[in-house]
């Protein structure tokens, strides 16, 4: 129970008036950063890093981690209101969040998203508090083969759990893989599919694809429907938070499942994006109202948000214990630690106890403060949708363009964004799902890297994916997920037989 004692010392440090002020400031800045597409958590933290140099290391890390929380919360706002995910892990939130906003239920969707984020993050912090040393050891078991198995599981569960015909899901995924392979081939150090064009050197950035596919595509679709934005009916209702909260406990099973998926994916270095997709896919299959997913089901917001935040939070642990950042934002936080002379790694927990437990205590309090702050903005944000579409559409377009431009400071990316917008519109018209495409762009190159690293190590033998219990289990789970529909049908038949 030494951990609990350390944690209370941490709380004592964090609860100084100055630190609480820093915390509120950090959350507000973070939300602003999260709302602006393209600015993103990593850039925001980087810009604000110098602000913290005048503070003590503990205050500084509280401020930075609160910006991080704020940005995580903020990412959900644009996903729900405008169908523009600011971060990879907000993509799954748009599936049901945006339809809800279109039906005039933006307040409910935002409340559900914020509350679920809070629950997921809190669950992960408790896990960190209780089993920190074990978790770090578990993360070490992940070599290339195990990493590939986790990505394999994410892709398979998407194909198997999807309601669309598998052929369309696979087709969309393959387009994503093709786009992900443009740029440098990290295994041979040579350029692929760039056709000598310098701007293609960096490949297709996820953010540009997503801003185009979702944001611009959505505007095109709405325009076709005659510029009538259904969100007009959104009512300002200060009590929306309470009313949604009354409804949320019903989804405790989904919530708990998503927490566990999130923590597991966060600790295995797969991260928040596959966690949110997997959690959404599984909830869609297992929920009683699964058939209605995609049409504005509140459970479809709860599942991905909970998992993403559980994963995002638990991913900080490998960063502190092993020194490998799980996300760009975490990498900037890592840079901050180094400036104060704190070397992340296995010795940080032994040598810098005050700091580590101060950070963990600030995770608890930062989340609570963050939840209160963002919930107060819900009625205000929901009111944005009352603005007529003909006014809001140009503003969204400008925001999208700024977002795409800031990724690499390149006008070519703005053009790419528009191209993706048209592609997104066409795919939607032909009923191809966009999510597998996005998932493949985000994870395609990582999965390829892990796959080829494994084969290099095994000298070409595929047996490496069954070479130990851990990797074998994950691969088997992946195959089960892939053929889930077939297995289910078979099972129903078998179960029906004796009755006949």
């Amino acid at each position: 129970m030494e951990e609990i004692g350390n944690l209370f010392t941490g709380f004592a440090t964090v609860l100084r008036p100055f630190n609480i002020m820093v915390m509120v400031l950090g959350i507000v800045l973070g939300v602003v950063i999260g709302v602006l597409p393209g600015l993103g958590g990593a850039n925001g933290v980087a810009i604000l890093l110098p602000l913290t140099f005048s503070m003590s290391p503990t205050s500084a890390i509280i401020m930075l981690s609160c910006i991080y929380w704020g940005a995580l919360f903020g990412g959900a706002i644009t996903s729900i209101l405008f169908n523009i995910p600011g971060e990879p892990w907000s993509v799954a939130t748009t599936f049901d969040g945006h339809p809800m906003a279109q039906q005039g239920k933006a307040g409910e969707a935002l409340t559900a998203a914020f509350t679920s984020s809070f629950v997921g993050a809190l669950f992960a912090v408790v896990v960190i508090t209780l089993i920190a040393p074990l978790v770090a050891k578990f993360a070490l078991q992940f070599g290339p083969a195990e990493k590939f198995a986790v990505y394999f599981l994410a892709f398979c569960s998407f194909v198997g759990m999807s309601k669309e015909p598998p052929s369309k899901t696979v087709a969309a995924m393959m387009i994503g893989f093709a786009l992900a392979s443009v740029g440098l081939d990290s295994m041979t150090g040579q350029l692929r599919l760039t056709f000598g064009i310098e701007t293609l050197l960096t490949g297709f950035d996820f953010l540009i694809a997503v801003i185009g596919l979702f944001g611009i595509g959505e505007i095109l679709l709405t325009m076709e429907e005659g510029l009538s934005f259904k969100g007009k009916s959104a009512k300002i209702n200060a009590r929306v938070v309470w009313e949604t909260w009354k409804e949320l406990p019903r989804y405790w099973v989904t919530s708990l499942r998503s927490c566990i998926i999130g923590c597991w994916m966060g600790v295995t270095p797969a991260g928040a994006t596959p966690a949110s997709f997997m959690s959404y896919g599984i909830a869609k299959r297992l929920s009683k109202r699964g058939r209605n997913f995609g049409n504005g089901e509140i459970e479809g917001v709860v599942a991905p948000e909970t998992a993403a935040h559980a994963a995002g939070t638990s991913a900080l642990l490998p960063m502190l214990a092993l020194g490998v950042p799980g996300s760009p934002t975490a990498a900037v936080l890592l840079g901050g630690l180094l400036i104060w002379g704190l070397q992340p790694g296995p010795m940080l927990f032994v040598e810098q106890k005050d700091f580590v437990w101060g950070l963990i205590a600030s995770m608890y309090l930062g989340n609570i403060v963050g939840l209160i702050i963002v919930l107060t903005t819900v009625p205000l944000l929901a009111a944005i949708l009352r603005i007529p579409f003909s006014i809001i559409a140009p503003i969204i377009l400008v925001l999208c363009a700024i977002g795409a431009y800031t990724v690499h400071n390149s006008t070519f990316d703005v053009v790419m964004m528009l191209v993706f917008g048209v592609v997104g519109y066409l795919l939607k018209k032909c009923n191809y799902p966009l999510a597998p495409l996005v998932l493949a762009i985000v994870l395609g190159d990582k999965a390829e890297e892990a796959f080829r690293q494994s084969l290099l190590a095994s000298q070409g033998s595929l047996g490496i994916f069954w070479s130990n219990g851990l990797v074998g289990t994950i691969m088997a789970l992946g195959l089960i997920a892939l053929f889930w529909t077939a297995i289910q049908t078979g099972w129903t038949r078998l179960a029906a037989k004796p009755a006949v």
Partner: protein
Amino acid sequence: MFNARICARSFLGAALLIGSFAAAPAVAAWEPTRPVEFIIPAGTGGGADIMARTIQGIVTKHNLMKQPMVVINKAGGAGGEGFLDVKNSRNNPHKIVITLSNLFTTPLATGIPFSYKDLTPVAMLALDEFILWVNASSPHKTVKDFLAAAKAANGTFKMGGTGSKQEDQIITEAIQKSSGAKFIYIPQSGGGAVAVQLVGGHIDSTVNNPNEAVSHWRGGSVRPLCVFDSKPLPYDEKIAGDLGWNSVPTCKSQGLDTEYLMLRGIFMSPGATKDQVEYYIELFKKVRATPEWADLMKSGAFNQTFMVGDEYAKWVAVEEKRHQDLMKDAGFLASQ
């Protein structure tokens, strides 16, 4: 939303303004008139990134510059993205870039239209060392044992490193050439990831930079075998038990005749004037005089050679030739 962003900006601006009242009067004739972009042609968390972010911290903390310094990672295409960006910013003195060996290796391996000659050299800040590491539970205590085992394993020993056809793989090639042992080289995305793969036992050895592996050495999970420099490292602080950087022998003394040091230097955009180069040289001299810089040098066990002007330009030219030869031997050139 825009207002909020402007608020955040002006808040930051105010903070910097307050800071700049304390700034010392500048010596150089030219001074930046807008924020200076500091490009890192590599990802977050690596050696170049850590150094650049530390410099940014030092410049801000000690008010060494009236304008803010903004650090930007442009890692795409093995750093090609960053180098091309600086190359295409002719006559923009507000853009500097920190280099690693990909200054030479990226254009050679990928054939992108870029050469170090396109940039204006400013200063060599330090040289980064390379060390041969094995897992602490490995039975190989000396380089001789390790190489003998690698030879006996008949090409199944796995060497992990950062990127493909870059410094880590070049060193691996050099080790193979001078020892006759064969390795499977497994490229990873960054130095931190390489170290963790070694700790997890997924690879047999690495040639990590000191600061990429030091925390794991302190934690007792990896062991250094030798350093790829001509003389042992001068840092005598104890890191793991009785051992410090100075107790790591040179590879040459252990019968492995391979040396490699990596440039950590600064270049700026083409077309810079003498005054502008002079300004940045003075800036980095001030950075080097701070205690934070000394700490970075010590924790990363850097070789603290500092060079500017012609001496620096000549060093870079020799190094480029050497990389071309090494990569040609290994068959890594884009034209091969």
